[in-house]
Structures are given as C-alpha cells and as structure tokens.
C-alpha cells in the first residue's frame, strides 16, 4: 500500500494535466470559425467527463473549476457576462454528467456528453435570462440546444478516446519503458 500523500500528489498531477489541456482546447476553439457566433464544440467538457468517469466527482469538479478559471484568464473574460455564463453552464453540465456517470454501464460516453451539453445550454440561457432580466433569450433554445446535443455526442466520443488512455480505477498502470 502506498501512502495517502502519494495518492493526492498523483491526483493533483492528473487533474492539473487535464486542466492545462482544457485551457489549450478553449483557446483553440475560440480561434476556430463556428456555425453561430456563440457556438463552440466544448471539447474541454470532454476532459471533465473523463475525470468524472475515471476518478470521481471530486476530480471532475476540480477539472471543471480549473477549466472555467483558466479559460476565462486565457480568453480575457474573467468576471465578464460570458464568464458567468461559462460558470453556470459548466456547473450544470458537471452535475448532470456526474449523475449520468453513476448509472453503471447503461449510458455510453456519447449519451452522457449529450446530456451534459444540453444542461450546459439550458444553464447558460437561464443565466442570460437573469443577466438581461428577460425570458426572451429562451427563444435561442431550439437552435442552441440542438447544436449542443450534436456537439455533446462528439465531445462524448472524444472523452471515450481520452479515457481509453487512462488506466481503469483500481488497476495498476501497465509497466512501460521510460516515462510518457
């Protein structure tokens, strides 16, 4: 048995790696053209799903929080209206995906990704409705939700690919020559 200290250092390293990756993905996505100005694929949410599925709610929440903060710093949106939308969206996606991951072996990555993306869109519109003081923004839901569900399937598939590189919880990682 390794000590608890070793475990938390490992966790910090894993979570930190995913947060860094999430930051890079957000900057890349911000610079790529999209079908609607407010639409993004949300690949960084795939990393939240990987953390949730492979390690647990705590790690998922850490990746989600780190992702939002780092993304806001890198794209210059800290404390802007867009930042509050990101916090609401990511938070809602985290809660919904954490619940969906608990249903063992029933849902695949694509379904969980779609649920998370839908939650993200709904929470963003709710936050926008509060910020603007009008429910009129809900008119964006059909388009935004539809794009989100499609994007969520893609991010779910991306999460499956990343998760395949991460050892199952409770198993020792396969021995490798050198460090990766």
């Amino acid at each position: 048995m390794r000590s608890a200290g070793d475990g938390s250092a490992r966790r910090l390293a894993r979570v930190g790696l995913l947060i860094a990756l999430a930051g890079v993905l957000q900057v890349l996505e911000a610079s790529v053209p999209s079908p609607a100005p407010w639409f993004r694929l949300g690949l960084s949410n795939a990393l939240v799903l990987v953390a949730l599925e492979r390690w647990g709610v705590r790690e998922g929440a850490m990746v989600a929080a780190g992702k939002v903060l780092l993304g806001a710093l890198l794209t210059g949106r800290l404390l802007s209206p867009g930042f509050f939308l990101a916090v609401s969206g990511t938070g809602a996606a985290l809660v919904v995906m954490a619940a969906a991951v608990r249903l063992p072996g029933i849902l695949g990555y694509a379904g969980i990704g779609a649920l998370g993306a839908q939650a993200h869109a709904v929470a963003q519109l709710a936050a926008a409705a509060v910020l603007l003081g009008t429910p009129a923004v809900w008119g964006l839901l059909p388009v935004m939700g539809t794009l989100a569900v499609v994007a969520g399937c893609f991010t779910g598939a991306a999460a499956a690919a990343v998760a395949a590189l991460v050892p199952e919880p409770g198993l020792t990682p396969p021995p490798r020559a050198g460090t990766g």
Partner: protein
Amino acid sequence: MRRRFTPLDALVVAGLLALNWAVLGRDRGEPSAAEIVSASGIRQVRLGAGVVRVGGPLGETVVEVAPDGVRVASSPCPLQLCVRQGWVRRPGGVVACLPNRVAVRVAGREGVDAVGR
C-alpha cells in the same frame, strides 16, 4: 469499461432533440413585431420601423427592424457576437447582447404568447 455509444444513448439524443424542437414549435405564425429589451425596459416596435437606438451600460446599441426580421447593426460590446449573429426572422428568434444588456426578439402573431411578457 464504458462503451462509447449504447442504444440508450440514441434514445437520450432523440429525446433531447425532440425537447428542443418542442420549445421551437411554441412560436408560430407570421412575425408581427419586434420586442426590444434594454436597460430602460421593454419596447414593442412594429416590423419595418427601421433603425432603433437603445442605451446600455456600455453605450448605444443600434437595432435594425426590417419588415421581415431584426438584427443588431452595431454594438459597443467587445466580442460583437450580437452583430455577427446577423438577421433573425423566425418568430421567437432572439439576438442578445449580454455585455450591453440588450435583447431583440421577433414576436409572432398567432397564439398566446407567454414568453416575452
């Protein structure tokens, strides 16, 4: 090991898509008016009214109300998402500018309109 895609996923995706489009179906009919929400309240404007200027925390947002749709023609916001969204013609459709607290909605003629009030 969790699968990438299961039959239940297809059901979930279909359900979510149906939900989104059910919301869309609530606004039908011909576009009848534009509803401009800003820091100074809600304004109903007839379609074809032309250029409407509204104020917000960042400055002046210029809304163009054409006979068949609305758009934000210019905005003082940093990202210009509202301007880049272009024309919205569908009843229930919205252009929103969060930084300047402006939303423009196309109201439909038919049915009870519970949204937007």
